[in-house]
């Protein structure tokens, strides 16, 4: 099974199963009312939509790398970032084990 390519998770069915609740929560943020509710009360929203404590903690800690490892799909996870006003570059850099500044510095170097 193709599970990883050059240091990136391949989003397999098995990962989709593991990350189901997390991704479902992320997709709920395509509704503006849900985005508002999430931003107003993160903890309450995450509990209400059925995340377990480990998953909710990954979101609260903005642990994007951890979310991917827990089965988050990048296209869904960036909706969480979007609702929080966090840009894709910051999310992506984190999944690569870098800060945004490190990532931008490395890019310039290329």
């Amino acid at each position, binding site marked *: 099974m193709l599970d990883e390519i*050059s240091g990136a998770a391949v989003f397999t069915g098995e990962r989709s199963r593991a990350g189901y609740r997390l991704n*479902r929560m992320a997709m709920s943020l395509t509704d503006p009312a849900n985005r508002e509710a999430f931003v107003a009360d993160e903890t309450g929203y995450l509990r209400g939509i059925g995340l377990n404590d480990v998953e909710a903690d990954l979101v609260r800690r903005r642990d994007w790398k951890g979310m991917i490892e827990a089965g988050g799909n*990048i296209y869904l996870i960036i909706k969480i970032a979007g609702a929080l006003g966090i840009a894709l570059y910051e999310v992506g850099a984190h999944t690569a084990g870098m800060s945004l500044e490190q990532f931008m510095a490395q890019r310039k170097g290329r």
Partner: protein
Amino acid sequence: MGRIVGGIGSSHAPSFGPVYDKGQQKDPMWAPLFDGYVPVRAWLEGLRPDLFIIVYNDHGNQFFFDAYPTFALGASEAYPQADEGWGKRDLPDMRGDPDFSWHLARSLVEDEFDPTICQEMSVDHGVMSFMPMLTDTRWPVPIVPFAVNVIQHPVPKARRLYKLGQAFRRAVESYPKDIRVVVFGTGGLSHQLQGTRFGFTDPNWDNEFLDRLETDPEPLAGLSHRDYMERGGTEGIEMINWLPMRAALGPAVRRIGRTYHAPMITGYGLLALEPA
């Protein structure tokens, strides 16, 4: 009978939205890409198309993993814009052509494809982001959106998508009305949105892909997903969406336009072809 009069491959990206909405197509960062869309748009209008078939992929907006289709064929009168999590742009619903959609459904099922048929379907930036560069945003030409799963593996093989394009051609040519159809394929080019290679692009691979797609496409159908993802990044697997467009045109094509630019973290490309 219907006829395929053109094929367009294009990248799509959320970032295209603000560029268009703010009129920044001529900004130095974007002009090298979007200057290439201008003559293609003129050519496309001159083709007087009656229908666009658009092979694209959704990004967790219309479809979720509760029921994820390998292939989803739109059969609706209208395709509203999806809110992707950051609000909608000021664009009207895209128009559909359910008569053709159901004809296509019959033809594809006869050809042993197994689409999920959608009479309610929103479309995300996979369709909406590049289309304003190519046609009036009052959407004069109806569309048939065809969504391909490229995000939850197993995704269909490149070979399957190549055959899909050949099946599109049979469907168009068996349609009783004399319609002029343009087939679109959209996704990629190289990009990787997560993991240690975050931000990866490969202009060499992207240009090789554009070369081969034009002149000798069939071997691209033989590449594995591993090939596509190692060379083009995990999210670069979207490039397989271009194959049906090319296969639908038949063996010999004439190039109308081609552009490539990689200013951010995705290789952006445009390729316009017509049957020779």
